[in-house]
């Protein structure tokens, strides 16, 4: 789910940004990787928070 979300959002962000096709692709890939990495980091941070106190 997270990967699908990251892919869809990065396609839109990538297509909107920059000037050349290569820059757009690179930006889209960068955004995709950032989504995945931040998602995983955030998930691990939230994992250690004891919500039921």
């Amino acid at each position, binding site marked *: 789910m997270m990967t699908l979300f990251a892919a*869809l959002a990065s396609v*839109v962000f990538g297509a*909107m940004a920059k000037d050349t096709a290569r820059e757009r692709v690179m930006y889209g890939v960068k955004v995709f990787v950032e989504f995945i990495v931040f998602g995983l980091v955030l998930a691990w941070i939230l994992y250690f928070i004891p919500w039921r106190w």
Partner: protein
Amino acid sequence: MVKTERMQVEEAEPTPGHAWLVGLAAWFIPGMGHLMLKKWVRAVLMGGAVWVCFFVGLAMGGHMYDLTNAQGTSSTLLQVPPMIANLGTGILFIICWLLGIGFGDDPVQAARVTYEYGNTFLLIAGLLNYLVMLDAFDIAAGRKS
């Protein structure tokens, strides 16, 4: 011409009426704005992403927001921001609203594991379409290539 003067000249230029029409079409049917501008690849990529996001959200049992089920003032206000996000999908939201798809308060649907994911995908579909709409508007207005 120095940069500040050039910026002032650019700001003084009125937005063409065509750009507003393109923006409206882009909101109403995701991808239509770029199709009108003959940006085929962008239309498929950006519009397609919105459509996929929306239908994946619906398939996961996501819920869309409107003001009809709100009970009381504070509840109504809380439903406005997500409703604005959902409304971004244009005709998709309107059709679902008219047919009552994705608007019901069904506990069985809410109990699905993918319910919250579906909600998020539906919200994101609308928000992404606002971005797509602004992109189409900027291209039509000549502010972007």
